[in-house]
């Protein structure tokens, strides 16, 4: 009996969406929570930790798209991006991720970086 309950609880916890806020990070800002989420749910894997993109995904920071657009895109991606339905990543978590992306610094123009001058 206890085993069945445990298994059900485990199944539920596996199926639960990733939430923006958990007990541990109650005091954290949206951007701090977003930074952790960005890594935890794998956005970094294709877009890079700094959101600068590369071989596996486009640049998504700084100046991220508005939250509703990102949410819509995650639910219905167009091309090679895997979908993040609401059942696995709630809207509030996406908003936090966006908050993190918005904190990433805008780069200097390439010509202002000596190593990038032609």
């Amino acid at each position, binding site marked *: 009996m206890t085993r069945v309950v445990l298994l059900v609880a485990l199944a539920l916890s596996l*199926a639960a969406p990733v939430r923006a806020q958990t007990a541990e990070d109650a005091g954290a800002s949206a951007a701090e929570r977003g930074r952790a989420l960005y890594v935890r*749910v*794998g956005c970094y894997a294709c877009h890079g930790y700094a959101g*600068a993109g590369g071989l596996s995904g486009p640049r998504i920071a700084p100046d991220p798209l508005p939250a509703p657009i990102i949410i819509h895109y995650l639910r219905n991606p167009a091309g090679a991006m*895997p979908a993040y339905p609401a059942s696995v990543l709630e809207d509030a978590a996406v908003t936090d991720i966006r908050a993190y992306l918005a904190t990433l610094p805008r*780069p200097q123009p390439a010509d202002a970086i000596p*190593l*990038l001058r032609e």
Partner: protein
Amino acid sequence: MKKDGVRLSRRSLLSTAAATAAAGAAAPAMGQEAPGQAQAQAPPPRGVTPPSAEQRAAETAPPREARVVGRTGSDYMVDVIKSLDLDYITTNPGSSFRAIHESLINYGGNRQPELLTCLHEEIAVAMCHGYAKAAGKPMGALLHGVVGLTHGSMAIYNAWCDRTPIVMISGNTIDAMARHGATEWNHSTQTDGAIVRDITKWSDQPVSLRGFGESLVRAYGLAVTPPCAPVLVTADKSMQEAPAPDGLPPVRVTRPRPPAADLGALREAARLLARAERPLIIADQLVRDQAGMDALVALAETLQAPVIDRLGRLNMPNTHPLCVSVLYNQSPRATQLAREADVILGLEVWDMWGSLYSEGGAERAITAPGVKIITISTNDLHVTPNVQDFQRYNYADLAITADAQTCLPQLVEEVRRAGGSASGRAARARALAEANRLERAASRRDASYGWDASPISVARLAAELWAKVKDADWVMASDTLFKSRWPQRLWRFEKQHQYLGGSGGQGIGYGGPAAIGAALAHRAQGRLVIGFVGDGDLLYCPQALWTAAHHRIPLLMVVHNNRAYHQEVMHIQRMANRHARGIDRAHIGTTIDNPAIDFAKVAAGMGVWAEGPIADPAALGPAIGRALEVVRRGEPALLDVVCEPR
């Protein structure tokens, strides 16, 4: 007494008998102990397993076989090996070729070829792979029967896919009655070649020394004739160790010319290209020397046609206005050019289909209806029934089976003769040059994002390296695909030897040893060779670094350390998203962290100067400077850089 169909001469029989007698005289009488035996009786040091009675008997009893003085079968084999003009032969030692090993170092003087010690057969073969592409000629590998060959097989597969020649020799005890002990049975086959038959161009197991001579020179010729590939000749252990009969004829290796196209087919191709309004060239495993690159540039300039360089080799200078870069097989600009083209010429394109059809989802041709497809390649000469590296079937209007580099000068000639509209070409040239300029500017702008971030952006790492190597005669010896092609996007690749392409088969473990092999090939010219390897890749055989230290092979090994098998992180993330039952566990089984591997310590343990982990982008430039001082002294150096995944 007949052996190899050749009568053993009186002289060699006599010398064998004399040696046996001398050995008997030198041996201590029964009951007496030789100095070595006294040691064997003493208690062994702690942690050392004492030899068994059987082992002791085997080591101390008078030799079962007669001592052979004078010329052995393996000496003759070394003569044959020397006729191939190999500079080096790699090995991880194995008893099945112990006589060849000994002949190489004593009879052969350890020169032409010099024996290189490798700590795994995958390293021994992958070094040959990198070397051959860099040197434009093969080197050899000696592989132990069954186990060594199987260890090396992954690297053989990469070389197979990458059309790279390697001359491999394995040891085997063909006659079952000649096998000593259980292990030798385990390390013997009916035929070694069967183990790697699908991934070698040819293999043979000759049963006479004359046969060995012929097989090895035949194998060499096959290996170096496009499509190039690894070959294997098995040397019977008994034959290696027995006296060589007199009168074995010397062998001479034939160096065949590559297969070329018939003139009619080239004229037809030239006519189609010259009349095209928007011709497009795609090149992949095409160019193998500077003349090949020059010929491709001449073809592109004559037609003023863009060249999509898929970077199976460095085909086109990336600064050339007609060069179109792609990350893998497509890019928005390359796709646009393919869409607009009326004639497309594929030159040794391994996966032509991948350049012409949209990826993923619906299978759609990118190209316009009525486009004429021409291919020149040796692809159809490189097919075996089992492995599927031949890729999707692709229709071509004119498919020319020939070595494309060999055909290029003639094709240029024919295109010039066929004429065409000069004004159309000039307009095309202007547009392409402008697009190329914009592409390079966009690369510099893209590189500025995340410039000061940690983990360090791969663009930043590439830019920091470039600043330090650009004035040297440098070589980027590693695949740059998983580095998002940042070297190609920021560096000026203008000479053929500056890039070697990738592993071919995408079997990881190639990066480290192949870069070391390339560094060996460039050592004499004093070129600065850079290995730019993934952490997961290098971890397949980090002990390749020891070989670089031991043989003083200078190179800068930069570890693009993303602490993961990152390609797999993305695959698992995709699966997790698709199955929608938990999306935050893709790191399980894919990341290489907790503990993070300290590559500087690993390298130092192998005798290689190293620094890292470097996670602060500001620390990178000075560290590269220090590493290059070591490399300039003629030694390898390693930098462990904690990087963005791609």
